[in-house]
């Protein structure tokens, strides 16, 4: 087996693993009970899943131009994802869309001003 073959096989493995992680993320979105837990699924396995898929693409494409683009995708995804998930999570928590019965510890609720529009009293 030449080096190219090894890279091809490794690329294939990376793509399959990345796809599996993304599939698990999709299952999580369907199965988890409230928005905050779903956010974990929607944003997180993506981090590793995306990195692995990009690695697989890099191993297969083997061109500097494509590599630059893949690095950009990784950087921007990793910089923007936390901010997006933070804004959604923050809004949902403040709107009271939390299954409080599933929280074992809640340090935040009592520090927030009471929101009269919240569905919970």
């Amino acid at each position, binding site marked *: 087996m030449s080096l190219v073959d090894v890279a091809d096989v490794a690329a294939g493995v990376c793509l399959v693993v990345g796809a599996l*992680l993304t599939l*698990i*993320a999709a*299952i*999580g979105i369907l*199965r*988890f*009970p409230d928005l*905050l*837990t779903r*956010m*974990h*699924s929607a*944003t*997180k*396995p993506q*981090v*590793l*899943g995306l*990195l692995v898929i990009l690695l697989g693409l890099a191993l297969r494409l083997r061109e500097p*131009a*494509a590599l*630059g*683009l893949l*690095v*950009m995708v990784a950087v921007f995804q*990793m*910089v923007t*994802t*936390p901010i997006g*998930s*933070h804004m959604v*999570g*923050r809004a949902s*928590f403040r709107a009271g869309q*939390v299954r409080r019965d*599933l*929280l*074992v*510890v*809640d*340090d*935040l*609720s009592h520090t*927030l001003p009471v929101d009269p529009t919240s569905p919970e009293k």
Partner: protein
Amino acid sequence: MRTAPQRPDELSRPPRVAGLQPAAVLWLAAVWVALWGDLSAFTVVGGLVVAVAVCLVFPFPRLRMRLRVRPLWLGWLVVRFLADVVVASVQVSWTTLQLRREPRNAVIEVDLRTDSDLVLTVVAEMTSLVPGSLVVEARRSTHTLFLHVLDAGDQRGVDKMRRQTFALERRVVMALGADTGPVQETRSEEVSS
């Protein structure tokens, strides 16, 4: 996050030219070249022109920070981060696939020991990227993060998450040496608990 008009950098808005920061221009030009996918005079000059235009149209206040990057510690930070992402991804995937079990989550307060905005930002970004923890609230005034922890389980899981966040903060400070002053040791009981 929140645009407080009383912030001094909002009042003394820098003149447009001050938005022209060499580092920002170079970075934007590099992005431009990477998006074109080839390194030629056309893309480099075009990138510089676009970068200057972007900096003039959207001027940012100049960041004042004294970074003291320690390459070895930075490498350690990155390696530990990738390891954390892999381990946590497996854990979250396992939690996801146990379809019958409802996860027992927690919202915990982590009061960072440093009072640097940069450290707060980097720690928040990195905790968010590690699966299982999500920043639901960040207080700049007290440098406090509120994390939603997926399937923390019980008090022990909560303490573990808190310890991990403090350890991450320490690694960030060691790697970037941001203008934080020394890390306060007064709260060490939270680490040992």
